[in-house]
Every structure is written in C-alpha cells, then in structure tokens.
C-alpha cells in the first residue's frame, strides 16, 4: 500500500502523519491528479485541520484549476453539439464530461482534459467530417498505418482538437474495440441511455448507472494509459457508492448487466482493485456472485501485482511502475487485438518508441 491509497481508503490516517509522510504523499497525489479529490475527501471526513496549511493551499489551488477545466469542458461540449445539431446524430457524453452533464457528485472534484463522446457507428465518420468542417483538426500526425489502426481496429476515430481552443474531442462508436475479446453491443448501451440535456441546455444523453460503471471498468483494464489510473479507480468507487446508496437492487442489476454485456471479467477486476486499493465495500452477496468471473490463481496474482505497481506506486516514476505499465500496455492490447495483429502492432509501436515506457512526463498539479 502506498500513502496515497492509505489516505484514499481512510482519510483519517493523516492524523498520524509527520512531514516525512506529507512530502512523500504530495508528489503521488499530484501525479495521480487527485489533489482536488483529496480536499473533498478530507472535508467530508472532517480532517482538513490535520493537513498542513501549505498543503491545504496547494489543494485549494488545484480545486480552482479543476473548476476551470470543468466549465471549459461543458462549454466545449455545447460547441460540439452545436456543430452537430443539423446532422441528426445522437450524442452521448462519456466519462468526465458525462459526470458534469449528469451532475453526479463526482462533478465537484473530477478534472478532465478531453471530451469523450459516443455516437452510432453509422454516424461516426459523418460526425468527424462535420467537426472537421467546423474548426476542429486531427490532433497529431497519423500515417496510413495509424489511420487504419483507428478505423479498422479501434472503437474511436483519431482524436480531434479544436484549432483555436486546443481542446480535444474523442469520438467513439463503442466502449471497446470491435476486434476485442470483450465485445459490447453498442445498441444495447443506447437502449439504456439516460437523457441529461437539461444541465447543458442541449440534447445529449449519458450511459445508464450500471453502464457508466462498466465503462469505467472496461476503460481501466483495457486502456493502455494506466498511469494516473488510480483516479479511475476512485471514480469507480465514487460511482458505485453513489448509485448503490438507497438502491438495494443496484449490485444485482450491475452484475446482471455486466453479464448481459459480456463484461464480467472487467467488473471483477474493477471491484477487486477498488476493494484492495481504496476500500470499496461491496455487499457479501455481490462478492460471492462475482467469484464466478474470477480468473485462475496465477492470472489473478499476476494481475494484482501489475495493477498494484502501476496504480499505487510508493513513489513517482519508479522503475517497477514503468515495467508494470509496459506489461499492462501489452496486456491491454492482448485483450483487444487478435494475436497476429497484436504482434504486428507491438513491433511497430516499439520501433516507433511510442509505448509508455517512461512514466516521466506531463505537468504537476
């Protein structure tokens, strides 16, 4: 356990901390992008008084920045919806921006850096073309291979960026790649969709409560960007607790939905990880029922080691973190690509040195 997961599991633990612990904690918190979350956690646990004043000030700074990016994201969503409104394309907000439009408790503390949207597969290229005509550009350089990688094997088109505002928009047509071993029926997601337009004043929907959690689980365990993934684990815990409070049927609905969508394994990993790292407390029946999706002892132990080292490092930029990230990167592709394709892709990625071998990048705060 790292100081960070100790705190996330029990915010009262900081009462015993000395400067040495705080100095190890702050960089981990910054890297995990959980500064704002930490302030809200300490507030609801009544432990802000136990945080050194200068660290409270740093957290207040992070909260101001979080609020700003949230406002920007919702504004950007409106502009995207405006650009698409004459195309007759239905749009669903995903992840960070979905938490904003659905006004979930997470909307208070969750930062975000891009706008993730879901549209129908049949509409995705029309939506892309429409945005490209309205001021968005392709974000980055994509050669023919990359283009093909996205368009044939992925569940999204290459990311777009607004030329002037620099904000990134990711257009998805599913939550997992079409070539993946976990294949989700997108039509089923749309059947469960919930209208959430009133907070943005435009027509947009979000995933149902269960699907939102399953998306988080699938994203966390199939994504190649596990760095900072502890934030996703916290999102999972926060969503789970929010939807589960006052709804006794929630856990059974969630499990049934996971099985209907073929997401039993990601749900198993998400719950297992959130239990061990951030003290999620699922019901006993849920734990018992979930065990039918449990992988073998060997796979389970390996994954636990990998996840723990990738998600809860005891200090920033540790070598084992980099190794665990690389192995999980390989694994995420193992799940989502057929073997021959995977081999070709990894060779190419390695040659182009685009794999996340180093964890040293990005800005603090």
């Amino acid at each position: 356990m790292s100081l960070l997961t100790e705190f996330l599991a029990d915010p009262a633990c900081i009462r015993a901390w000395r400067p040495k612990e705080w100095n190890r904690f702050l960089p981990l918190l910054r890297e995990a992008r959980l500064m704002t979350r930490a302030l809200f956690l300490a507030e609801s646990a009544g432990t802000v008084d136990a945080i050194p004043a200068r660290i409270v000030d740093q957290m207040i700074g992070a909260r101001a920045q979080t609020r700003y990016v949230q406002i920007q994201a919702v504004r950007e969503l409106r502009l995207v919806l405006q650009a698409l409104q004459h195309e007759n394309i239905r749009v669903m907000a995903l992840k960070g921006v979905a938490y904003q439009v659905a006004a979930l408790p997470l909307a208070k503390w969750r930062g975000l850096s891009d706008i993730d949207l879901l549209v129908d597969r049949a509409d995705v290229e029309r939506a892309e073309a429409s945005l490209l005509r309205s001021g968005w550009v392709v974000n980055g350089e994509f050669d023919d291979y990359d283009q093909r990688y996205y368009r044939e094997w992925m569940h999204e088109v290459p990311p777009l960026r607004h030329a002037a505002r620099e904000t990134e928009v990711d257009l998805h047509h599913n939550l997992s790649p079409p070539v993946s071993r976990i294949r989700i029926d997108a039509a089923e997601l749309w059947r469960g969709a919930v209208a959430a337009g009133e907070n943005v004043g435009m027509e947009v929907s979000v995933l149902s409560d269960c699907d939102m959690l399953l998306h988080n689980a699938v994203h966390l365990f199939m994504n190649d960007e596990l760095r900072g993934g502890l934030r996703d684990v916290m999102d999972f815990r926060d969503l789970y607790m929010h939807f589960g409070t006052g709804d006794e049927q929630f856990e059974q609905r969630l499990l049934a939905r996971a099985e209907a969508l073929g997401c039993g394994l990601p749900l198993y990993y998400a719950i297992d990880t959130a239990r061990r790292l951030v003290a999620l407390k699922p019901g006993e029946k849920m734990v018992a029922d979930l065990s039918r999706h449990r992988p073998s002892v060997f796979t389970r132990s390996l994954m636990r080691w990998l996840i723990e080292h990738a998600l809860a490092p005891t200090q920033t930029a540790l070598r084992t973190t980099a190794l665990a990230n690389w192995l999980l990167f390989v694994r995420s592709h193992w799940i989502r690509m057929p073997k021959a394709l995977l081999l070709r892709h990894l060779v190419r990625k390695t040659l182009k040195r685009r794999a996340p071998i180093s964890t040293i990048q990005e800005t603090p705060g």
Partner: protein
Amino acid sequence: MSRPTKLILDTGPFRVGITSAIPQLGDTIAFFYRDAISTDRGDVLDYNIGLHRPPGLRAMVRPQVVFDVDGLRPFDPQPLENAFPVFEWGLNWCIATSAHRYMMLHAGTIAFDGQAMILPGTPGSGKSTLSAALHLSGARLLSDEFGLVRPETAELLPLPRGIPLKNASIEAILEFDPAAPLGPTYPKTRKGRVRHLRPDADSLRCQAQPAVPRWLVFPKYVAGAPEVLTPLSRLEAFRQLAFNCFNYTLLGETGFEAVDRIVRAVDCYTFTFSRLDAAVTALQALAQGRQLAIGAGGKA
C-alpha cells in the same frame, strides 16, 4: 562528482526543497537567498526540486543540467552553466502552474512602509528595471515576476527573488547604482544575456509580511520621453490589470472580485519614462504624497 546536498528555501508563502550536487549552484543560491535558506529540518515542502547532471556520453561533451520537481522532468536538459537561471525559471513554472490559491499578477511589486505599489508589465515595459531601481533606492522588494494576491483580502504576499535583468537593463542598473549587488552573468539564456539583482536582507526577512495595495502604475519605457504620470480610469485599470494576471480566467469570479477589490483600493496611473533616476524620483514622490509630474489628483 560531489555528493548532492539538500537545502530548504523559503520564498514567500512557499517552502522549497532543493537537491543538487552542482557546487556553483549552491553558492549562487546562497549569494541570493542567504537569509531565507536553511538546512533540511524535515519540514513540509510545497515543491521538491532537484537539479542534476544527466548521465551519458553527450553530457561529457556538453555538460547539461536537468530540472526535476517531485520526480517529474517537465523540461529538456539545459546547458550546465545556466543552472541558476534554470532553477529560477523552473521554480516560477512550478508556482505558475499550481499556485491558483492566489491570484498571480505579472507585475513587479514594491512596498513603502507596508503600502504597495504594483507595476504590471508586459516584457519590454521596463517593470523589472524600474522595480530594481526602486528597490535599490530603499523600497522593500515584494516581487518581480509574480505579484501574489490573496483574493479574499486583496493583500499582496511578498515573493522576493533575484530580479532577472536582461541585456541593456544590466548596464542601466549598474549606471544607476554601480554598487548594485548583481549575481553572475549568464551570457546565453533563452531570454538573452541575464544578470540577477539580489534582494536586500530586509526584503527577505520581511517576506512573511503582506502589504496593502496603494498605487497601481502601468510603466512604459519610451526612449527619450519625459517622465509623466497620467491618471488612469478605474475601468481601464481594471481591464489592464486583469490582462496582466496569469490566472484571471482560471479563477473566474474569484479573480474578477480580487481585481475589482485592488482597483478600488489604489490610485491608478500610467507612467512613461526613459531616465531611471528621474523615474525613481517621480515614483518616490508619488509614494510620499507629493506629485512631481503632471496629472496630479490621483483619483480617477
């Protein structure tokens, strides 16, 4: 290579850990901040900075320095001889990207008996040169790069650092005060030739004491122009101060209210100048309640 040493720098509200094995860097930091540095007593830190020479063959041919903060390396390696400017610039970057608990004005700020004069400035406006000259003439240096404002009270928090004088400003300051305590010359930085002016001991000793904004002066260096203070309307002062605030948009309503609070509390002027000594005399007179230049009246 010698063992890395760790020292603690208190700079305004921030406590910074600095670990480095580069001997000249420790000496330079000690030259500028002697009264604000201490050995590591195990205090809680805002930023834990390291400045190290990267390993590898290339580093032997062309010595370099890498800046890291909390284990992250946000910048490419820089020439080793620029270790101190890299440290200063890197620390400013840390503050600028995270200290949104404060409103950050891009301004020189100085104080006359606890009353602060804010000198916002775009590069080339002469704010650093003017702040340096006023400081050399006895005013307390609050800050050169960041005017830190506590939004709730609109107080200015000191952040006294070496004032980076660029190119011709170096000679201008030496002409103004041949005894000015300047650090080493860095002939080739990204901003040209740079030499820093050391803040006086008093400014460092008082760096925990906030100051109340009293004057807001927008300086503009115009070659050959006479020194003229012209009152500025509060509306225009608001607009220009907000424009010179790093995180005005980010802070939203908090920023709007803080700028409003400052603009209501100060006398606002624009100030054109060309001669440093005459400029200092004019601004000192303003601070003492005497008006030498035209446009007396102050309240707009």
